[in-house]
């Protein structure tokens, strides 16, 4: 799994590539926790390069989402591949997250 972090217009962006599962989740959990600690936390997780997520990965994203929301912030997702989006649909997590097609749309929504 490749992890790239950057900032754009007050939005902390996490760009992931590869399998996002119990083996690769720990550093992402740490990053999300630190990024969510800023107030207000605006986090965008770009999953365009992710081809698989397991329940540990989903739990990491849910945890990050709750931490952001507790501090008046938001965690958005973008670029989900079909099979990953299916997992969000099947588990109805698509209801919990704001999901965007790409970074531009997500950043615009986060900064408005």
């Amino acid at each position, binding site marked *: 799994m490749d992890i790239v972090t950057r900032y754009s217009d007050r939005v902390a962006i996490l760009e992931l590539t590869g399998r996002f599962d119990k083996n690769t989740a720990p550093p992402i959990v740490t990053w999300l926790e630190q990024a969510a600690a800023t107030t207000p936390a605006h986090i965008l997780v770009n999953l365009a390069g992710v081809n698989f997520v*397991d*329940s540990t990965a989903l739990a990491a994203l*849910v945890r990050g989402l709750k931490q952001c929301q507790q501090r008046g912030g938001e965690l958005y997702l973008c670029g989900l591949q079909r099979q990953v989006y299916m*997992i969000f*649909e*099947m*588990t*109805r*997590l698509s209801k919990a997250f704001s999901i965007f097609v790409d970074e531009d749309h997500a950043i615009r929504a986060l900064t408005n």
Partner: protein
Amino acid sequence: MLSVRLRIKPMSMLAAFIQVHYARFTTLAEAWLANGATTFGIWQKGQLLAGWPAGNKPDQPGLVMPICVGDQVIGDVRISGMPGSAARARLAADVELIAHLFRLEHEIECMASDLVVTQDQLVALYRLSHSMSQYLTIEETLTALVMESMRLIKARNGFAMFVPSIADPIVVQHPPAEIDEALLWRCFWQAHSAAPEVSLTTLDLSTTMADCPRDLLFIPIKTRDTVIAGLGMLRDPGRGFQTPDIKLARAIANQASAQIEKVLLYKETFDQAKIRAEMELARQVQQDLLPKQLPHVTGLDIFAASRPAFQVGGDFYDFICQTDRPFTFSIGDVSGKGFPAALLMTMTRMAIHSKAFFMPEPTPRVVLQQSNKDLYKDFTQVGVFATAFVGQYHPQHQMLHYANAGHSPVIYRPAAGAATMLMADSTAIGIFPVSSCEDQEVALRPGDLLIVATDGFSDARNPDDEMFGHKRLLDLVDTLAEQSAQDIADSLFTAGDRFKADCPQEDDQTLVVIKGVAT
């Protein structure tokens, strides 16, 4: 290093020297007597130790030549009856030779004495290693180390400490509590960051030691490339520690290092065995929590099984059978793996079970909504969620009512149709404070089939990194639909195993198969 200086005891040593070499002294004396000397004697502090000819004791010797060894005069040689410078020169040469022989003899004795000391130390080290090897705790080992070191190095006080990576540090000293522990730790931390061994001067403890002045030797003990222990010895001021003491202390420290390593390894092995035993116990408890018997429900063929990826898992299934209520079952999957997931799985299972069992009208929706309410806070704090499916069979209509909180895969295959996925109607337990799940229903008439599995089936991967996926699962269910519930379950496990081949099972696999049958 054989440099121990023994104090010469001239009286006994010169007499002993003459006794050992008496024949040679006699030859030397007879040579002088043959050349005209009337007497030849070796004296010490005015007393004759040996004289020739025997029984002849001259009152006034002609020549007196002191025997000097180093800066010490250990005696003299006296000759009478031969005056003159030639005789004096010859006597000086003979005495010089005697002194040289004496020195050599003395050095040999010193070396022999050193060898005896070294041999004693080796024996003592062997005893130390033997005595320490019987101890299985660090504290016992440190106590033995201090006691044996004090005995070998002849120290007045001794102390040793150990800093484990987890748990409190340990310090032992003898005599007990005589020195402030803060001072002992100061020695340790200075040695930890600096010198290979620490003495009183390098530590500059003059102020703190003022009330208890001692000469100090401290040897850090390394284990696994880290200073994790230390040995300190104290002597009365002025006695100091010489090279042999330091060498011996180092040898003891090395010995102690090996023993500490052994104790740590023993402890680690012991701890691992304990963890394994506890894991096995947890696995057993978890297995015992699963229903021991399959329920007999008229109109249904039911089978369920669970196979954790690790010793304990985060999946569960449960049957709630009460005489006056419809048959209810649940299946769930807590995010994460291993012990943490297992703990939360037990919580989730109990929350659902108690609601289904005790609530007045426990529809699947109510059971899941109430469970979500109860678990949300704890799950949010820990950062997990649990998918869950609750089903309830109503035999009078041959219908299954169900609610699905984020659970997948759930496969339904009507007797006359193809297998399809039943989507969740709400998010998993622990995502939102209020669950939006609803009661839904499907028919379970003869031939209708419902398989509620966990993602350990659909997410299984083969050596080419392909996922089993939902399509393979649906196709497989279509081919197995005519079989009994147990045969379908067995075939699903077998197909999953065949698919993943040599790849390890990464996730727990649990399923409940329910098939409508003719009554």
